[in-house]
């Protein structure tokens, strides 16, 4: 699948932002006043920035508001609604906390659940696609959720908790890679795609056109697969191992925290790039890819 920068930025940044918001809703850390303002500003910048990046992915953004209408069937629509609900709920919580020194515990808890719900709905946009077997697994929501929780804990300064959550994230990432490699195209072949398997082995003799098209650009992306191993090492090393070591081995100063967050962000972005780039779509079979 084509790794669009807007979608990578969207899932990475908004995941982190909603993760941090969830922790703030739970009162971790128990900040108030201006310190709370800084935390909330950071969380909202990440979450809203990510969401805005996703709008850049649309070819016809003037109809974007209509995306709130189809929550009964569409995970993308549910995500939009969950995101707005989470941001509004947490905004009320944040205003009460910052300006009135009032901690609305139940509202915070409810907001935290909405934040995690938003990340879950984001992950389901990918998980629901049977056409991309590597995404169509329980590991996809788990990795997205643990990325939000681990990264959120890191940003919220919950050092020990962050280390534990990131280790779980790392294990899930490795498991998803192994299972994804095993699964391949989940039994779909050029023989099932054309129905010509009843004659024998099928190969593409001639593609329908000599040039590029939308389908090839979007769904037969092949650069990522060749660098898969390197990118996995980057994702695991920077996204998980280095931040965990920093959290556990050193006294965590603001600077160390900043390095850990930056490393995590770069690692997760690499992992997310690979998430798209190495995912194979069954329709590419028709092009012999």
């Amino acid at each position, binding site marked *: 699948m084509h790794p669009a920068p807007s979608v990578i930025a969207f899932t990475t940044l908004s995941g982190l932002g909603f993760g941090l918001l969830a922790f703030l809703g739970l009162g971790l850390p128990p900040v108030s006043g201006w310190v709370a303002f800084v935390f909330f500003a950071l969380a909202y910048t990440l979450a809203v920035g990510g969401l805005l990046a996703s709008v850049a992915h649309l070819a016809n953004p003037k*109809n974007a508001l209509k995306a709130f209408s189809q929550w009964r069937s569409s995970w993308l629509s549910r995500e939009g609604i969950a995101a707005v609900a989470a941001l509004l709920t947490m905004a009320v919580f944040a205003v009460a906390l910052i300006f009135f020194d009032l901690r609305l515990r139940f509202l915070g808890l409810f907001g935290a659940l909405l934040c995690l719900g938003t990340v879950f709905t984001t992950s389901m946009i990918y998980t629901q696609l049977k056409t991309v077997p590597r995404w169509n697994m329980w590991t996809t929501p788990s990795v997205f959720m643990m990325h939000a929780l681990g990264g959120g804990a890191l940003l919220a300064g919950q050092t020990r908790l962050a280390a534990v959550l990131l280790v779980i994230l790392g294990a899930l990432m490795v498991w998803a890679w192994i299972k994804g490699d095993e699964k391949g195209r989940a039994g779909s072949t050029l023989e099932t795609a*054309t129905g010509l398997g009843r004659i024998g082995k099928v190969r593409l003799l001639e593609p329908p056109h000599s040039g590029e098209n939308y389908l090839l650009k979007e769904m037969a992306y092949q650069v990522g697969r060749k660098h898969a191993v390197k990118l996995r090492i980057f994702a695991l090393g920077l996204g998980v191992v280095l931040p965990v070591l920093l959290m556990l081995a050193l006294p965590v100063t603001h600077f160390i925290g900043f390095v850990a967050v930056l490393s995590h962000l770069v690692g997760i972005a690499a992992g997310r790039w690979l998430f798209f780039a190495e995912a194979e779509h069954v329709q590419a079979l028709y092009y012999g890819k």
Partner: protein
Amino acid sequence: MTTLPQTTEKKLGLVIDLDTCVGCQACVVSCKEWNTSNYGAPLSDIDAYGAEPHGTFLNRVHSFEAQPETGCSQTVHFPKSCLHCDDAPCVTVCPTGASYKREEDGIVLVNEADCMGCGLCAWACPYGARELDEIFGVMKKCTLCVDRIYNENIPEEDRVPSCVRTCPSNARHFGDLGDPESDVSKLVAARDGMDLMPELGTKPVNKYLPPRLKDQPSEATLKPEHTDAKGLFAWLDKALEKL
């Protein structure tokens, strides 16, 4: 709503005969011609006369080669367009309500006034039947020529999809696949019509008729068989061989 109808009154669709398709691409051209000038935004071409021409098509013809265990391979020309699936995953993923399946005839359409160009429906389709138009930013797909089949302003024989009307080898058939008595349903039954990628559970309405088995096994004989030369030619053959 992008939820799918429980049942549709009719299941209009195509039956494509892989035995008779000659891969002439006439259906590709006629589809492009009709659909670029009628329903919805045109099908744009980019760099049409340049080095990297590309554009939007609703119907494309691939060519495959199937190799049986023994004997010659079989070349199969393979037109592919939207299969108007009963359980269309492209419809349910749509967040704006632009994609829908019609209750009256089962045609899957895109209401371009609602499409935001997110491309998720194209990801959900296993067949590569949807293409996002690069210039107009909306999703394009086969409409089963909905603006021809009910069109009383054109002669009756033209009230079929453009590709069907054009096909010179009669490899494309149009009709109600929900009615077991229809010509297309009988054709599917008689020729063992099949679904593409049935394992994905999309329940396509369009069916493909597999190529008929050869009546006699074919063997490749690409070696020249001129061993029976006599007289002057036998001498020439020998002489040339020695050179």
